Structures are given as C-alpha cells and as structure tokens.
C-alpha cells in the first residue's frame, strides 16, 4: 500500500479549462428580472411593525421599499434602501438573509418561503446604479472636519452620513484600495463585476469625502494628531489579526490564513494563475472557512475538507452556507480538532486531528482517538480578532478603553471612552457582518453630527 507520503505535494495553477474560471466565479445568485421582481414584490404583505424590518441591522423600511417596487417607483425604492443603508447594494448580495430579515419574514412562519428581500433589494439598487442616479444632495458646508480611519463598510458609511450633512471627511486607509473586506474578503461570486469599487465610487460621488490611501493608524498617522486636527474621529479598522491554531507545523509553507488566500484570490485579475492544492483542508466553522473551501474547489482543488471541532449547529456559518458548501462538493467533518500539521521535505502533507466530544460538564474535549487527512494546503479559518497594539495602543493606554477581547468599548452611539472618538464595525463588539458595520457607521455619523451641532 502506498502511503500518502509517497505522493509528491501537488500545488498548481491552471487546473481547469480557461473558461471554467469565468463561470466558476460568476454571480452566485443572478439578479431578478423586472417580471420576477414584480411577482416577488406582490408576495409581500406590507406588514405593519414588520418583523423583517426589525431583523435588519440597518432597519431598512422593507415593506415600503417592496411596495415601491410593486408600484413601479423603483427610484423611490432604492432611495428608501440607501437612506437606511448606504451599502444596500452590497448587503443585498452578501447579507446572510436567512438569519436576518428573511428569517423574520412572516411568510417564513406561514409557508417556510420568505419574501426574498435580498434579491428585491438588489433589484432596486441595481436599477438606480445602472441609471447613474444620485439620490442624495449634500447640505451646505458646515466647515467641520472629521477623520475616518479605515475605508471599509463602517468607515465609508460614517463618511457618507457625515458628508451628506455638510461636513468635510478625510478617510485614512492603509490598503491601496477602498472597500475593506468588500474588496478583499467577501467571496468573489457574491460581488462580481467589480461591484465593491463601483459602490465606493457611488458613495464618494456625493462629494465631501477624500480618501488617503497608504495611511496606517499607528504607523503614518496617530490618534492624538487626528484628535487635535479634526473635530471628531471615527475608527473603522475591522479585524487586524487572525487567531492561531497553536499546533506543531503551523508555520510550514502551505499553511495559510484563509483571509489572505481569499484576498489574493479577490485581487487576481486572472484566476487561472492562482496556485491551489489538489487536496485542501480548511480548519474552522465560520463563513470564512466556507468561502475559502468553496473558492478552492472552484479554482480546481479536487478534495476539499472543512474540519470543525463541534457539530453543525455550532458552526457560525449559517445552515444555508453549510449546505451550499456541501452541494459545491466540499466535505464537512464535524467533531475533530487539529493536533499537528505533518510535513515532508518542509512541505505540508497531512493534518492530524483528534476526535472531540462534549464531556459531562458540556465542555469540549478530545477523545484520544486520532485520524489524518491528506493535504497539500491548509487554510486556517478559526476566527479573526482585533489587536490594539498595532495602532499604537501603548500611547492610548489609560485614555482609551478596550474590551477584554481587545476591541474598542463603545456606547450605543458608537462613542468610545474619548468623547470625540467613535468606532464601529468589526473592531467593536457585535455580529461581524457588512450590514452591522454599515449601521455602526451610520449611528456614529448621526451622533457626531449631534455633538458638533450642539457645540
């Protein structure tokens, strides 16, 4: 019997016929036609105190925007959406609606078939973008200047909210492109045709927002300066570190952070040039794990296995995402934790796992039984975090309050312990989704405006 060790590590690009790369990364859910949109819109009951609306983190007036589609007022529909959520276009594509608005839709209770709010939201916003309509007008300049750090969903939402109110906003962004994880993280087939950049262009087109790229907080700029030079500061820094496995072999070549792999994939103009292993192991249970697994498969990997230490209900990837991984040919193995990555000639060959179970106290423990999964590449996706040290937290100690997990402590206005410093998105507590980052930015903008108007 040949051992897996006898087979050479197999990492290569161009595994697929060229045109497969195109189709594999096409729109995962194609847009609705006008007819489809009208049929779907007619399913909405126009609920009063609508449960869907409450389940949307940005509180979009869903019955109203759907009724406007049905009444052929698509511009009004899109405006309703964008007034509550300036990234309504991205959210329509990336929101896990099955745990948000659509789960709450009364039609889910009635017939297990919600109104597909996300697809209708996309229909309306696409309509507006295709026509290049600008639904917002800026208020008279106030002369107030605000610094926003991070051009992700949280930062851009805050910037837009403030710009519309007449304030002047400068956004400092470490990366060469704006959009945050919309540009570098979200799965390619969820945001096709450069949508992230087109949406940023739309957001900026209202005026009053300048983005300075290549400016990192803690390196090129510092909070103390920003506080001195601007009337208020908003921090939308996202996560900036990845949780480590803390096992032997983690540092080997071929053991990669899933988010780095995804970022590289998102930036590659030609996906056929991306090297991918024949056998992939993804460790983790969130959407990042699912996205890394599916996209590996779509790059031509043959065997892709997600290994997660608990059962399906413990995974933070929604049931829909898990199912989608499985129908995409990804194997999900539950109840196992990684013990070591095994290498040959300095390259990854296998990952050893230990079966897990819940002990009598309900705590996760290893069973003492082990198995190995062959792998040419291993993607780590066991969560990301925010490490304050990277922004020069030392100098902030005692001034700025952090939560035990390292993220900024904020109140309901997204205000930090410093009165003119606000923060939102993944770098504060909450559900880590685009839509909640947008809401944080929106709330902070409103609070900043109130604060500035009062003084």
């Amino acid at each position, binding site marked *: 019997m040949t051992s897996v060790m006898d087979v050479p590590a197999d990492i290569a690009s161009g595994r697929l016929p060229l045109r497969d790369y195109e189709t594999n990364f096409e729109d995962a859910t194609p847009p609705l036609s006008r007819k489809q949109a009208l049929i779907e819109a*007619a399913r909405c*009951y126009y*609920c*009063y*105190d*609508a*449960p869907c609306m409450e389940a949307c983190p940005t509180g979009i007036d869903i019955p109203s925007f759907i009724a406007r589609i*049905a009444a052929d007022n698509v511009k009004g529909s899109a405006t309703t959406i964008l007034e509550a959520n300036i990234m309504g276009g991205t959210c329509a594509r990336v929101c896990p609606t099955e745990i948000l608005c659509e789960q709450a839709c009364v039609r889910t*209770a*009635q017939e297990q078939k919600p109104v597909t709010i996300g697809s209708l939201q996309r229909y309306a916003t696409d309509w507006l973008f295709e026509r290049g309509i600008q639904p917002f007008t800026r208020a008279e300049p106030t002369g107030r200047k605000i610094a926003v750090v991070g051009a992700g969903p949280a930062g851009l939402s805050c910037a837009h909210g403030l710009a519309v109110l007449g304030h002047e906003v400068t956004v400092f962004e470490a990366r060469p492109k704006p959009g945050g994880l919309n540009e570098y993280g979200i799965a390619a087939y969820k945001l096709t045709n450069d949508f992230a950049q087109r949406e940023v262009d739309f957001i900026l087109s209202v005026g009053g927002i300048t983005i300075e790229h290549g400016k990192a907080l803690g390196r090129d700029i510092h909070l103390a300066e920003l506080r001195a030079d601007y009337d208020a500061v908003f921090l939308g820094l996202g996560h900036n570190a990845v949780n480590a496995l803390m096992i032997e072999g983690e540092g080997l070549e071929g053991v990669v952070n899933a988010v780095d792999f995804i970022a590289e994939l998102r930036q590659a103009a030609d996906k056929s040039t991306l090297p991918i292993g024949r056998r992939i192991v993804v460790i983790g249970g969130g959407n990042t794990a699912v996205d890394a697994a599916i996209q590996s498969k779509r790059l031509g990997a043959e065997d892709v296995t997600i290994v997660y230490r608990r059962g399906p209900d413990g995974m933070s990837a929604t049931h829909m995402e898990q199912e989608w991984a499985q129908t995409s040919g990804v194997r999900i193995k539950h109840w196992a934790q990684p013990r070591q990555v095994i290498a040959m000639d300095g390259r990854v060959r296998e990952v050893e796992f230990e079966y897990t179970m819940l002990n009598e106290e309900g705590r996760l423990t290893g069973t003492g039984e082990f198995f190995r999964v062959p792998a040419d590449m291993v993607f780590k996706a066991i969560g990301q975090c925010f490490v304050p040290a990277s922004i020069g937290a030392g100098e902030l100690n005692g001034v700025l309050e952090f939560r035990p997990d390292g993220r900024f402590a904020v109140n309901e206005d997204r205000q930090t312990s410093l009165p003119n410093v606000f923060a939102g998105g993944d770098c504060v507590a909450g559900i880590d989704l685009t839509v909640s980052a947008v809401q944080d930015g929106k709330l902070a903008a409103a609070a900043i405006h109130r604060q500035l108007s009062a003084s």
Partner: protein
Amino acid sequence: MANLVSDFIGIRSPNPFWLASAPPTDKEYNVVRAFKAGWGGVVWKTLGEDPPVVNVSSRYGAFSYNGTRIAGFNNIELITDRPLEVNLQEIKSVKRQFPDRAVVVSLMVPCEEESWKNILRQVEETGADGIELNFGCPHGMSERGMGSAVGQVPEYVEMVARWCKKHSRMPLIVKLTPNITNILGPARAAKRGGADAVSLINTIQSIMSVDLDVMAPTPVVGGKGTHGGYCGPAVKPIAMHMVADIARDPECQGLAISGIGGISNWHDAAEFISLGASTVQVCTAAMHHGFRIVEDMADGLNNWMDSRDFADIRAFTGMAIPNYVHWQDLNLNYKIVANIDQDACIKCGLCHIACEDTAHQAVGALRIDGARRYEIIEEECVGCNLCMHVCPVENCITMQERDEGKPFLTWQDHPNNPMRRQAAE
C-alpha cells in the same frame, strides 16, 4: 352524480354552462372547439345588418392586480365584423353537428320593426334554439342608437321585445345593460314585452387605465383611446346584485335569468344559480384560459352538488333569494366579534393597523418578552369584519357569535328610527 342538464325556457343543454356572445362564439371554428370541449351552449356573437361593422386594432384592456393577470377586462370591439350570410350559414352548420347543444343567436339591428322582422326570419331558418337581444353593448353601437342606448330606455326594451315575439316563435332572451341606475326598469319592461328570459350583465362602461406616457386611455389606438366595456372577475359582485334584484322582484316572477359577469369557476356559477340564475354565461374566463375550463367547472359543480345532495340545478336555483333581504330587515341585535387563532397568526400586524387607523381600535398590539402578539379587545369590536378580510392567513381571524340574549330587532322597529312601526294598540 348530480344531473347538470338544463332546460332554460325550453332550450335544452347538457349543462348550464354557456359561452356568452363574444369573440369565443364569433365563428364556426371556435364554437365547434367549444362544443368539443364540453360547453352546454353558446350565444353566438351578435349579428347585425350588412354591411358589417369595422373593428379597430388594439381592442382589449386589462386590469391586473397584485400580480393577478386580468382581474378585470375591457374591450372596445363591436358586434361581429363578418357578413351576415356567412354567420347564418355557420350557425346552421353548427346546430346540425351538435343538435343537443344550445345555440342562441344574439342580435342587434336598428330600432325599426322592419329590421327586426327581417333578421328574425333569417335566424329562424338556421334552426337556432333562441335569440338574445343585445341591449347592452356600452360603446360604439349605442352611439348609433343600438345596444345600451336602447337598453337604457325601458319603453324601447318593451317595444323591441314585443316585435320579436310578434315576428318569431323562438324563445326570447333580453340581455340587460348594467349602465343604468335601477336594473328593474328594463327587466320589468322585458317581461311586459313578452320576453321569456333576461341575461345579465353586459359590460360596464369603463376606462381601463391611462397610459401615462402617451397620456391616453388604454387600449390605445394610434395615440387615442375610448371608453370600453368592463367585465371579468372584478364585475361579478355588481352582476350578482343585479341578478338577485330581479330574482326577488315580484313583478319579474316567471322571467328566467341567465347569469353573466365574472364567472370563472364552478363556485361563481353556483353563487349565480343560488341567486336565481338557471344558466350561466362565460366570456372573460374562457378568453383567459381557453375552452378547457368548462370541464373543471362541470366537475366542480357536480361534486359540490353531490356533497349537498342537490339532484339537479333546479334543486338550488334561487335558494339564497329568501335570505337576500333589505337592510331594514336585518337583525340589529345579532352580534359577532373577531377572534384570532394565535397559533395560526404570523404577526403581520395588518389587523391591528387596519382597525387602529380606520375602524374601532379593537385589535391590541402587544409585545410579550419582545414577541409580537395581537389581541382582540372584545368590548371595542363591532364585528365589522375588516380585520378578517385583511388577515393574509385563511381562517386565522374568524368572527364568532355572541348571544347577548337580546330579541330580534330590525330598524323598522328600532327606537332610533323616527319612522318606526308602531306596535298595534
């Protein structure tokens, strides 16, 4: 198996489902297909004098509601645009091929005795079973002194009916226009003129929609539009009211009724029959779905009649009429209140907002541990049914009777009525 056979003023048909005088009955080809599909009878598309009329291109308008296509329908077509002789030949041929089906011929000619006499003779020669006078067409023809122009003047209705009975032995149906304040006027006139039956309703004058780009009513004919005749499911309530008014009218007793207006399925048909119609006529539903619908209609009616032990159509014809009373005969002490089935409720809030904003503030909106709950406040509920109608879940809100031990009391005897009946001394 219930017996669906119909005998309508001596015109026999294997079932009470007839196609109304309209495009589906415009020529032999269509009518043969209809009879093969199972229709009990047809009223041939209205014949007129030669030279035939000319129709415009772009003829129909439709009212779609919430994704439902053709909730209402209208047309600006006229009577048949084919030569009289062609139609007569085809009627003859069809009747020969289908002797067991009802073939009634619809007629509209100028309001002169000679014109009627002339055409009646020709129709009689075809072997047709009867005639139907089109006094209903609301557009195009009425401008020429025909159709609803005649139907709106009871004296004319009576006069033409009389001519027809004088010059022909055929059973006579007068088709009534709804474009009139009181349907009893022309209905009684038809009776006086000797008509055997009335059929109703014809279409209702309407503007279907306005094309806001062209700024013209639809259907648009080269940038212009005109009013047309409204029909289809949306007109059924109007039609049933008129049918029922005739059915309960003492002066109209003995006049048979063929019900028309928005009939699309067996249920609609059963409703018309229960209000006194003994045949029903269908147009829009057939134009929407084709002739095959008759099979479902016959089957549905049959199964329902079996479930109610009705042996034949006659067994329930007009059965709802004794219960169709005037408002002043309703019991003011009858009380119902709304009840919400909490397990079925999907928390859409529609009952609450409807009652709160526009009715009696009788549906409370609660939050129990954050969860929505809607509850009827019985003291406030007047039993208006609004919440039941807005609720999207069938049988979730039901109206329940409350016996308050009060006597039967109508407005005629109510103390608030200044004209109340005085108790006998």
